[in-house]
């Protein structure tokens, strides 16, 4: 069910199929609006804007130094359901989920790596204010130096289709490809490394897990502490104690694993 919803949302966010055949990106007005998830607007199929790319574009523009439009949008989706979009809607989440199904030894990432997301967030909100070009326009630092979503969704298909872009390969492309390949390999051997370690959108949405309108609720009266939910959690949380953790992507595997019905989605 989750895979189906993830696939449908990925198709809807990348509905401009002709773009993959022509190597051109969509230029319609729907790109005024952000999609709830990491989906690069330079992906040939993208029909909406990536909220993280859009945030950097506004912060780095000559006219604005902060964005009410994007932060308001992220606040809306976060306060509605926290990181539910990470588990059910984000196309890059689906990409990592598919890679994680490749049989291999699975590794646990050290817990401290989760704090690297804060560095990503600083790159998004402060980076474009500090690193500016000659005319004062900010650089989208996270997109430029880190984000593997742009490399995989935009860089790879566009450079395959457009020889003129291929001719401009340089150090940056090599650097970004290295990060992308690393994320791909890590996604095979560890569950959702990008979401756990690098994603600034997931970090912001995670702050809302505690207060969101729709959230996971544990009925402690029914809970027998059997540990099935903890075993099922791909993020390595203990759902009984950490239902509102900022790391929880609300995939609902804990809810499905619970044989007592102690874990439920609620608006309490």
């Amino acid at each position, binding site marked *: 069910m989750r895979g189906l919803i993830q696939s449908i949302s990925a198709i809807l966010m990348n509905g401009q199929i002709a773009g993959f055949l022509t190597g051109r990106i969509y230029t319609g007005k729907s790109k005024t609006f*952000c999609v709830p998830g990491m989906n690069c607007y*330079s992906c040939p199929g993208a029909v909406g804007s990536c909220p993280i790319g859009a945030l950097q574009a506004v912060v780095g523009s000559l006219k*604005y130094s902060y964005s009410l439009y994007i932060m*308001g949008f992220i606040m809306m989706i976060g*306060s509605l359901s926290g990181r539910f979009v990470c588990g059910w809607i984000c196309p890059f989440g689906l990409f990592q989920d598919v890679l994680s199904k490749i049989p291999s030894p699975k590794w646990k990432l050290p817990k401290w790596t989760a704090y690297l997301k804060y560095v990503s967030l600083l790159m998004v909100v402060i980076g474009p204010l500090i690193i500016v070009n000659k005319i004062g326009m900010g650089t989208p630092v996270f997109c430029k130096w880190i984000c593997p979503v*742009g490399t995989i969704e935009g860089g790879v298909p566009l450079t395959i289709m457009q020889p003129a872009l291929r001719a401009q390969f340089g150090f*940056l492309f090599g650097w970004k490809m290295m990060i992308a390949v690393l994320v791909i390999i890590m996604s095979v051997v560890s569950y959702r490394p990008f979401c756990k370690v690098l994603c600034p959108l997931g970090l912001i949405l995670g702050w809302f897990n505690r207060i969101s309108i729709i959230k996971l609720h544990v009925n402690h009266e029914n809970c027998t502490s059997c540990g099935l939910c903890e075993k099922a959690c791909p993020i390595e949380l203990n759902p009984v104690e950490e239902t509102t953790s900022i790391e929880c992507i609300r995939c609902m595997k804990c809810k499905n694993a619970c044989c007592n019905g102690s874990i439920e989605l609620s608006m309490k």
Partner: protein
Amino acid sequence: MKGYVFFILGAVLTIMGYSRGEAAVVLKKAIRICLECIGIG
């Protein structure tokens, strides 16, 4: 309750941002290939 407050606040901020012209900046950026994003620029 806090969730509802933040949802409404988010909606208000989104409308304020849209009305001060941020959406045009987003559109302008999104309809051109972002060379930084794809690792060229």
